[in-house]
């Protein structure tokens, strides 16, 4: 790794990233780079540190060492909400939507305006907000559910709603943690279609176990094992890597 010679086009540059929980290194000296408009899938066995990597990038967990550069900005020093404002969106593994609010209100809260206390007191639900909410709702197949409370949605619909909440933020980097887990076959197909539509003009970092799904969408795959990179490259290359077969794909 040549410090100072990173090519400019990297959207996200993770270098030397380490996090240790009471001595246990969940992520150990990890470096990888994501380009503009790239879809990168992270795979790996349980406990490999996949979710931790996303937590580190979005600021949920603080890094012990290393750096995360996003468009030249150092993310490890920023607070979660500031990281969101630089253009990083994160979807959690379990759908986390606001169940006591309607689909419309869920999406509206994520609309990137009026995010300060006084901004939110004076926030107006104007035509622009409504238009954007409806546009996103249509994309996530929830257009006719705008006034439904989120707790009445199915598991898959909640997942879509959360993806919609990220879309409305229009992030440059979208991070999705197991977006199709727990979905029915038809929901899964719809989600793949949805993801293929929304990944235009942005980079996406996805954690997923469903290899079929990974093959469908990935430009490049990173295999994590015990907090370190085991293999990286195209799906074809990774699939045939004997180390990957041994620890992950083989069983």
């Amino acid at each position: 790794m040549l410090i100072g010679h990173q090519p400019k086009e990297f959207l996200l540059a993770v270098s030397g990233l380490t996090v240790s929980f009471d001595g246990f290194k969940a992520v150990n000296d990890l470096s990888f780079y994501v380009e503009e408009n790239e879809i990168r899938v992270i795979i790996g066995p349980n406990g490999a540190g996949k979710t931790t990597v996303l937590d580190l990038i979005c600021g949920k967990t603080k890094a012990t060492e290393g750096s995360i550069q996003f468009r030249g900005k150092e993310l490890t020093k920023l607070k979660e909400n500031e990281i969101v404002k630089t253009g990083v969106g994160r979807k959690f593994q379990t759908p986390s939507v606001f169940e006591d609010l309607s689909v419309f209100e869920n999406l509206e809260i994520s609309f990137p305006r009026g995010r300060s206390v006084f901004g939110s007191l004076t926030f107006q639900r104007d035509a622009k907000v409504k238009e954007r909410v409806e546009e996103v709702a249509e994309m996530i197949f929830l257009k006719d559910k705008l006034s439904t409370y989120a707790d009445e949605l199915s598991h898959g619909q909640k997942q879509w709603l959360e993806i919609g909440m990220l879309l409305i933020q229009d992030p440059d980097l979208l991070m999705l943690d197991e977006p199709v887990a727990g979905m029915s076959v038809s929901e899964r197909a719809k989600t793949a279609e949805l993801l293929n539509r929304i990944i235009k003009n942005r980079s996406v970092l996805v954690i997923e176990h469903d290899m079929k799904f990974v093959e469908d969408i990935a430009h490049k795959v990173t295999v994590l094992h015990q907090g370190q990179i085991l293999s990286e490259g195209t799906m074809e290359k990774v699939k045939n890597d004997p180390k990957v077969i041994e620890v992950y794909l083989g069983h």
Partner: protein
Amino acid sequence: MIINSRFFNRSELIGFVSLAVLLFLILPLSLDIFRLNLVAKYLTYAFVGIGLVLCWGYGGILSLGQGVFFGLGGYCMAMFLKLEASSVANTKIQSTPGIPDFMDWNQLTAVPMFWKPFYSFPLTVLAIIIVPGIFAFIIGAAMFKRRVGGVYFAIITQAIAAILTILIVGQQGYTGGINGITDLRTLYGWDIRTDHAKFILYFVEVVLLFGCIIAAQFIRLTKLGRILVAMREQEDRVRFSGYSVANFKIFAFCAAAIFAAVGGAMFTLEVGFMSPSFVGIVPSIEMVIYTAVGGRMSIFGAVYGSLLVNFAKTMLSESFPQLWLFGLGGLFIAVVLAFPSGLSGIWADYVQPRIDRLLSSRKPKAAWTESSVADGAPAE
């Protein structure tokens, strides 16, 4: 500001109008001045309750220390009234005339610096808002920025209530100690102890209460109100939608503190004294119970809860003083276990549907269908 198409939906409008009729007409016309003054005292807790609805019901921040802010507001008002009551003419038998009596008993010879602003009524009114506001801001910033929340926050607020009580009791020369600040007489020469003054003060208080109700309703209907609900459910999702969760919690906590302080100031005016017994742990918990009984998600519920529980308290403690605390504890357990959304929940689940059915059977296809509710914005 029109966020929903209407400021109150139909059931809220009914609640608002019926509360106005009750407080402005029925109670003043039917009660004698002694009972009306008791109602005024009960209603001072409704201010605290409204704040708790925002902070606890909506924001999910349980504060067991609202007595602190109630007390700060009350003490600010009491300090002004005490200084006015301690004119040289009134206190000429003291060794230092012109200072409050308890200061004289504690060998103070001059009014302390921090009492000086309270010679001015405008400054006092400002202090009633600013002092609790700033205090709540400091506590809120210290706790929420460090992500202290839930039970830990509740315990800390309770500790603060205990600390403030001990401080007030201990600093007798500056605060009047355990007796509090008593023997308050006039406001700009207007005797607040007369029946007539109590009657006027009742109406002043009810007007202020409606001011607070409208302010709380306004906050509830803005996006900030929805963010509070969102925060209560999925704090991380709010954070990763680009909001500083701590700032919103601080706002809710400060708003609740200021409402409580207005109630405390009115309490001092209605009752004619202020003491540490309204600051500590027990009154703070009682205030949470009033809100829980009324329904912690309902602004009107908080008002009715304060009225009813206090009314019951007066009745029961007049006849069975020992039983009251058990009654209160039992009530709290019953509400939490059986009716988590309190009286307003019982109303919404059982009474409201019957009324609706009655009305709609009489007037088929009434005008109030869903058309007036904004798209995607359920009225509740």
